[in-house]
């Protein structure tokens, strides 16, 4: 209990931050009863010393001890610009290969152009990887009509069948309504080879892209032997050999770049390293 004999002890403990919440409350009640003591509490509070951070020890170097080689962490410094350069290169290759794919398809006529805007099959029908054994059946479930519209439309289902959300086409190739080749095409007017190609690839546009070697690295394990025998879809695209070889070259470059980045990432993940950014360098300590 705070009295006239011990109130100063409470004030000192208040200044030192050593009072419990209950004692703080008790002190405040005492001060409420004796407001003339408030200035004394303020004076005790002002006795707190404040360290001057500018006063530093200037002889730290003399105190430091050499660290034995066994204790020293291994450090690899990689300039940040190199990392960004790799990322920019991969992005540029992706863009270039996509652009080549798009422009190549545009110049070859209606077959491949009509493939581009076709909506994707429902998620349950087929994954993006070309793994569906019977693409024509999958197509029949999704699109019974013979007309390929310019704008993706929801899949039509038989009456009584539960409707499921239709996955939108993978946004790899930008659809442009102004391009004449993108206009609706009656599938009956397409050459037979084009229709077959369309059905084979109409699950969505992703197979066209994911079968590019550079982009299908993560899916390769899922490829069936049958698909491997067919080769990538680049081989099956109706484009000239010059463009095909160019696309393959680009895809190979992308695959190599991606593979290098991926292997670096896996190496980092496997090793017990810490990564920190300092100035213009990435510091890997392990």
């Amino acid at each position: 209990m705070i009295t006239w004999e011990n109130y100063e002890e409470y004030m000192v403990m208040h200044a030192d931050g050593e009072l419990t919440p209950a004692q703080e409350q008790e002190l405040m009640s005492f001060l409420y009863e004796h407001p003339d003591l408030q200035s004394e509490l303020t004076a005790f509070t002002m006795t707190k010393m404040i360290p001057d951070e500018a006063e530093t020890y200037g002889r730290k170097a003399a105190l430091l001890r050499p660290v034995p080689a066994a204790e020293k962490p291994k450090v690899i410094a990689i300039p940040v610009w190199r990392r960004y350069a790799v990322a920019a290169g991969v992005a540029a290759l992706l863009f270039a290969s996509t652009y080549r794919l798009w422009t190549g398809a545009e110049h070859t006529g209606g077959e491949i152009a009509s493939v581009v805007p076709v909506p994707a099959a429902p998620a349950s029908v087929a994954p993006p990887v070309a793994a569906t054994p019977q693409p024509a059946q999958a197509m029949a479930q999704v699109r019974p009509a013979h007309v390929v519209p310019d704008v993706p439309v929801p899949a039509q289902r038989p009456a009584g069948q539960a409707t499921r959300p239709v996955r939108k086409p993978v946004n790899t190739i930008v659809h442009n309504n102004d391009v004449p080749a993108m206009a609706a095409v009656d599938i009956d007017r397409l050459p037979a080879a084009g229709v077959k190609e369309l059905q084979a690839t109409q699950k969505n546009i992703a197979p066209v892209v994911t079968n590019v070697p550079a982009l299908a690295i993560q899916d390769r394990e899922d490829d069936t032997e049958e698909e491997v025998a067919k080769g990538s879809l680049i081989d099956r695209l109706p484009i000239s050999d010059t463009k095909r070889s160019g696309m393959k070259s680009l895809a190979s470059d992308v695959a190599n770049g991606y593979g290098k980045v991926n292997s670096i990432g896996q190496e980092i993940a496997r090793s017990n390293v810490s990564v920190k950014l300092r100035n213009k360098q990435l510091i890997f300590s392990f």
Partner: protein
Amino acid sequence: MNAEQYNTCVHEWSDALFRFAWKCTGQQSDAHDVVQGSFEVLWQKKDEVLPAKAKAFLFQVAYRQSVDNFRKRSRVMFKDAPEESYSPVNPDLKKVLDRALAQLEEKQRALVLLKDYEGYSYDEIGQITGLNESQVKVYLFRARKTLKEYLVSVENII
């Protein structure tokens, strides 16, 4: 504690230790000696001191060396000199507090610095100084009262 951890302690605690020693001894050169001596002891005992306890260990050594140093040389310059430079026209609180600190005996001063500079609790201060908690409380009470009376008297002068 290995050499790497010891060097980390140097970077983290040498400044705080220096400020504490400087205020305790009142002399910058003595503070340098105290800091150097404290880290020398830490290096010798590095196999026994855990990194988490290194700071308290350093302040324990510095406290002993500062108090011993102060007693050995019986310096009172710290008490007398600053008073001359006091200017009531510009009563900087920090300067007034520094002068008030010089009025305290060495043990009280060390305890106030451990409390205010480093934020140690009464119990932790007791472990560093070898005093029990009641003694710490009494020392700090007397120190605060002296400091407060000095501040009030200065304000009265102003």
